[in-house]
């Protein structure tokens, strides 16, 4: 039965090995490499905190925005981070529904990455308000102004609900998945405080078959809920643009185009993190070349959808007969920001084509470099969509240029600092691989033929 499927976890692991190997990085003192990375990340975070404090104190006039380019770096970063956050739910929910068992090795860290990326993303609209202490105005609450309610017809408000629901559901999904593993940590820890903390967090999980049966039901329900959620969230993000009458934004292709782009960039970030993580935490038997190859195939397919969308946009602009629409696309490819456009096309469409070849998909160094290219390309995709559509609008007299200020660049660096600081802490204090799920997909030991024949197919 199992011989037809390739082995997911190599090294002939048994369940006890899984517990030991996954818990090992948490139980030893952090390595010099971890400390180095942590210092670097937290320094970037501090730079970001200083930059954000400064721009809130001084006002967002510290940015390079002008009357024509009213959205630029900040919203680019927002869409970039939300996009990164989409791979986690794709891997944990969509691949769960499709019964892709290889997901078990990567889902935990991908979900953690999702959570952190959505937090990073959520900060940007709040900073963008300029008066973040009034962020509660986004919530529909009874107030002394009437009550004046929020505008439920605005995609910006849908975004508030979409992103916060996504953050909360991802957090719950991640935590529910962690419960059995926290119980494992509780039961094996020698240190009393770790036992205590894991004991509180594991909510008294004891591995009872009745609990497992209900747990599996709820996990399936959450996966079923998170799947449409992940598609809805980035569709809503795209509607922030698509419902505006700006040429280059006002297109019906935006929701699927954004969703594909989000998953594409998220997978690239998962690959970047996993390729480093499997090496530094000695998890090569769990996150194998096979896992990386599977993710590369997904990334390639998403990259092709994104490439098709780039082409479709150009075709529709030409076909529409709308001179403004046509101008925006010519301006993207040949105007002052053409360098950004061609960076985007080369990183997102040309470079990933290497993944058609098995040799490159299984070459870790090549995959790592490609994933970095895609991360860069997808950041530029958002920059191109936002800035090139805005900077030359209907009236040539109001055309303007845009360049980020040092404050904006420091804020972007700070968001990377926040992301990596949190991710490094996650790697240090949580099991980076879903132990209870990986144990279920280990190769089953060979059994006597007598018992095989009398047992029906349990699954």
């Amino acid at each position, binding site marked *: 039965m199992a011989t037809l499927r390739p082995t997911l976890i190599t090294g002939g692991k048994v369940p006890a090995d899984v517990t030991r190997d996954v818990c090992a990085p948490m139980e030893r003192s952090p390595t010099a490499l971890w400390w180095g990375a942590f210092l670097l990340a937290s320094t970037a975070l501090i730079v970001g905190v200083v930059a954000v404090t400064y721009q809130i104190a001084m006002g967002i006039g510290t940015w390079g925005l002008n009357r024509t380019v009213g959205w630029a770096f900040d919203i680019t970063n927002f869409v970039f981070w939300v996009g990164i956050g989409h791979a986690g739910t794709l891997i944990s929910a969509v691949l769960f529904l499709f019964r892709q068992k290889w997901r078990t090795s990567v889902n935990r860290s991908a979900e953690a990455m999702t959570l952190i990326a959505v937090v990073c993303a959520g900060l940007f609209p709040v900073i963008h308000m300029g008066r973040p202490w009034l962020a509660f105005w986004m919530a529909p609450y009874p107030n002394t102004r009437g009550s004046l309610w929020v505008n439920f017809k605005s995609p910006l408000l849908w975004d508030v609900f979409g992103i916060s629901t996504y953050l909360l559901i991802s957090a719950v999904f991640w935590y529910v998945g962690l419960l059995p593993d926290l119980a494992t940590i509780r039961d094996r820890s020698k240190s009393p405080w770790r036992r205590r903390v894991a004991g509180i967090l594991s909510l008294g999980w004891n591995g009872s078959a009745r609990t497992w049966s209900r747990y599996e039901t709820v996990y399936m329900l*959450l996966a079923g*809920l998170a799947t449409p959620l992940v598609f809805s969230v980035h569709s809503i993000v795209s509607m922030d643009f698509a419902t505006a009458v700006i040429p280059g934004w006002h297109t019906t292709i935006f929701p699927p185009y954004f969703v594909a782009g989000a998953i594409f960039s998220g997978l690239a970030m998962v690959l970047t993190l996993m390729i480093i993580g499997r090496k530094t935490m000695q998890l090569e038997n769990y996150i194998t070349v096979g896992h990386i190859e599977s993710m590369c195939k997904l990334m390639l397919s998403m990259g092709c959808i994104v490439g098709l969308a780039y082409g479709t946009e150009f075709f529709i602009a030409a076909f529409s007969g709308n001179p403004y629409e046509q101008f925006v696309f010519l301006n993207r490819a040949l105007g002052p920001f053409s360098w950004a456009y061609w960076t985007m096309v080369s990183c997102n469409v040309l470079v990933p084509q290497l993944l058609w070849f098995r040799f490159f998909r299984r070459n870790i160094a090549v995959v790592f470099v490609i994933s970095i290219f895609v991360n860069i390309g997808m950041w530029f995709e958002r920059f191109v969509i936002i800035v090139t559509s805005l900077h030359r609008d209907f009236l040539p007299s109001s055309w303007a240029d845009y360049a980020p200020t040092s404050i904006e660049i420091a804020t972007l660096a700070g968001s990377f600092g926040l992301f990596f600081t949190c991710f490094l802490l996650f790697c240090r204090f949580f099991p980076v691989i879903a132990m209870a799920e990986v144990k279920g997909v280990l190769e089953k030991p060979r059994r006597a033929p007598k018992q095989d024949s009398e047992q029906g197919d349990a699954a």
Partner: protein
Amino acid sequence: MSDRVLLATFEHEEDLLDAVREVRRAGHKILDAFTPYAVHGLDRAMGLRPSRLTWVCFICGMTGALGMLWFEYWVGALAWAVDVGGKPWNSLPSNVPVAFETAVLLAGFGSVFALLGVCRLFPGKQVRPLLERVTDDRFVLVLDQTDAQFSATQVEAMLRPFNLLELEERVVAAGGVE
């Protein structure tokens, strides 16, 4: 009051599954089984009823969707009707995204809290695991021994072919195999 239970430990899920089937065939009462991961088919082998948590999810989701649709209608058309770009006050399509997100939010939280409630999982709950290794790599079958018909030697002979690792009798508080 206390109960006498028999703990049978196995190393592999297949052995546990086969043992569960055999024990049920012989008519013994299975109190519970403890496993380090979700063993597929164990719920059916033990004769557990399918979970009804799907209904909780459905009801919470519907509450979220309908409640939010009603709230959006009330806000947009009744409480303070604001003309936004000439759209109808009660514009259903523009109310769908938020209603959908609320449905997902309530359905997700509802089913998770229901799960924690039915399984009595809460922070600070004290667990004394029957065997510390059930969350690592051991599969434990817990049989009720209070039945007068129960014979430990007979059960042991029955379980032996399934690579039984260990058999232990234990006295636990009534209903307390938690």
